């Protein structure tokens, strides 16, 4: 593939914008995980669906591998091109249509940045349901390909639940227009949902029609001091009963320590707690929230807490949760993004805690996550005296035991970050051999040449 040069691109992919500049190859060939050294042959920037089809046809003809690429905020290496692939960036396909008021939906091309969908919705007095810390850089194509979740899943669902219509080109080069923005459509297999979460292995997503929600109105944020993980589940149940929740997140004090040091923020509470819950809910009266707080203190679930009184405060409180990931990024943490049923969360935390204490007492482990969805992010920080290679090796040993534990609880080894390269060796902990075989057969129908994201997921 080393013979892909300017002339080759010009002859084989006429009219398609491309770059082979070293800095472009380095940045478009990698994602947030930086799992492998980027080494793509070229980066392609199609401008419409036909050009995507043209690239796919060429790849099939020439036997080349393609890596679909969005905002490259992925955490599992799904968008990494380390073996001379062609990166297919959707970045120049970023048409954002006006909101369709009657349908309460909006059609966006794959390269539209997630946060700008929210802005478009807000201008129309509506709301887009998916949000997370990388929304300012990630693209809707990448969100759909990973079925991104984020902080408001418990109210609005996953990216999957927002997609009313999907436009894509299969790995075979077929143009697909799926579900056309319909709410009801009982006409057989819903291929749209097959493509959502397929991590660029079945088709290249080119556009989507997304559902928009009514403006949620005023919301408040509470940050609560929690004594231990035994309190998390009863606290969640009490809060869900008393408030209209839109987020329920948790993080340990170590996370807060990193955020404060990194972002120069004051500690959120006077007295440090072992653990915190950040919850967001529809605005409540002082009486209501005071009564709830008293009840929670009585039940010894929380010991202290603060509440936002302005949007400014709400945003400031969110920073303690949203900036965790960036505050530890420099230490290249080993990330595990795991899920169990909500009811099994305390058991999972208990077991993992014991496991780490017993086998890896030297590791600093940061816990945080979307606990209201049963989703926990486990971040292991590298001890200074360990080489990166030895660290990775030890983390992978931990993985086996962590995943064993998850398998026993019938959980998922990747809740929302996808499988990509990172979790590919462990897929069997969450999917049976029969399921994996069916996935392979589906892949061979939609991408018979195996040109889309080879080596990822399966």
């Amino acid at each position, binding site marked *: 593939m080393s013979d892909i040069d300017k002339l080759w691109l010009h002859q084989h992919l006429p009219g398609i914008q491309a770059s082979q500049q070293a800095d472009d190859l380095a940045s478009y060939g990698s994602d947030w995980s930086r799992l492998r050294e980027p080494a793509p042959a070229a980066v392609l920037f199609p401008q419409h669906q036909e050009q995507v089809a043209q690239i796919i046809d060429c790849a099939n003809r020439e036997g080349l591998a393609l890596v679909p690429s969005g905002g490259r905020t992925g955490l599992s290496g799904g968008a990494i091109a380390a073996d001379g692939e062609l990166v297919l960036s959707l970045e120049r396909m970023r048409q954002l249509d006006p909101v369709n008021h009657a349908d309460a939906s909006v059609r966006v091309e794959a390269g539209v940045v997630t946060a700008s969908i929210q802005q478009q919705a807000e201008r129309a007095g509506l709301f887009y349901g998916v949000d997370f810390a990388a929304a300012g850089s990630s693209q809707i194509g990448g969100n759909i390909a990973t079925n991104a979740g984020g902080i408001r899943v418990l109210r609005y669902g996953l990216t999957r639940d927002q997609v009313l219509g999907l436009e894509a080109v299969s790995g075979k080069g077929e143009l697909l227009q799926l579900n056309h923005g319909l709410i009801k459509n009982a006409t057989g297999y819903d291929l749209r949902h097959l493509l959502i979460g397929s991590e660029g292995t079945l088709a290249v997503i080119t556009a989507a029609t997304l559902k928009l929600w009514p403006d949620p109105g005023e919301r408040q944020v509470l940050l609560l001091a929690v004594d231990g993980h035994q309190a998390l589940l009863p606290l969640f149940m009490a809060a869900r009963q008393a408030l209209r929740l839109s987020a329920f997140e948790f993080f340990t004090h170590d996370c807060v320590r990193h955020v404060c040091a990194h972002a120069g923020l004051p500690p959120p509470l006077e007295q440090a707690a072992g653990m915190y819950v950040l919850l967001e809910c529809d605005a409540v009266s002082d009486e209501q929230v005071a009564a709830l707080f008293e009840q929670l203190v009585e039940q010894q679930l929380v010991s*202290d807490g603060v509440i936002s009184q*302005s949007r400014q405060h709400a945003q*400031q409180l969110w920073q303690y949760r949203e900036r965790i990931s960036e505050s530890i990024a420099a230490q290249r943490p080993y990330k595990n993004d795991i899920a169990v049923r909500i009811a099994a969360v305390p058991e999972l935390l208990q077991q993992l805690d014991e496991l780490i204490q017993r086998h890896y007492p030297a590791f600093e482990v940061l816990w945080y996550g979307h606990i209201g969805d049963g989703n926990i992010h486990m971040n292991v920080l590298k001890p200074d005296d360990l080489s990166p290679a030895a660290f990775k090796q030890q983390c992978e040993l931990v993985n086996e035991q962590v995943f064993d534990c998850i398998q026993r609880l019938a959980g998922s080894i990747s809740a929302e970050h996808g499988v990509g390269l990172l979790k590919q060796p462990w897929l069997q902990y969450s999917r049976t051999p029969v399921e994996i075989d069916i996935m392979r057969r589906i892949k061979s129908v939609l991408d018979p040449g195996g040109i889309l994201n080879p080596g990822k997921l399966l």
Partner: protein
Amino acid sequence: MKILVLVKRVIDYNVRVRVKSDASGVETDGVKMSINPFDEIALEEALRLREAGHAEEVLVVSMGSEACQQQLRTALAMGADRAIHLATDDALQPLSAARVIKALIEREQPGIVLLGKQAIDNDNNQTGQMLAALWQRPQATNAAKVELADGSVRVTREVDDGLEVLELQLPAVITTDLRLNTPRFVKLPDIMKAKKKPLDVLAITELQADIDADAEQALQISDWQAPPKRGGGIKVDSVDALVAELKSRGLV
């Protein structure tokens, strides 16, 4: 010493403000209202001074309709000791507001009056200065640092060519700038406590402030308009095209 803090109820800083369709004002129905951010900073500073032992009481005062009791409750939950709602349904000009506060000062005798350098609704930046003049006491505006010593206060201000340090005799008026401090969050246990703190309502007519009807008439708002919509940008393919485009618009 008693510190009197003024808190104004304004549209939340993060709300996109909309002009009413009949151009008679801005939309406030169903819109999130909060304490003016500069006043919140003033309150935080007052609380810190009290916590450092420089004051015994922090009194918060808000002028306006009954709705501003909500902001007073928030201020009490943040830690103020007592609140007074100066009730009026009129939106007073800064001079009248200063006159009302001046009348209240005579009753309350505070050592320091702390307030925001401006309220983010009308951005007047006048009330503190007018109040100091009416009260005939020293003033330090746009405070970036406040240090108390016996009977006097040192205030650092960020000015164009560096830092200016003022030393004022008390009582005095101090208006706050953005960088003075970061206000605390309201603690949940304090919400209930705030319910039990005194919040007195006083009609401004009871204060016998000599509000000058002529002064109130002197400035009248005739019309409200949203800023013009920004036109979309265009993309050009080359530097030459950019230069040609700028020339054609007479910009170079």
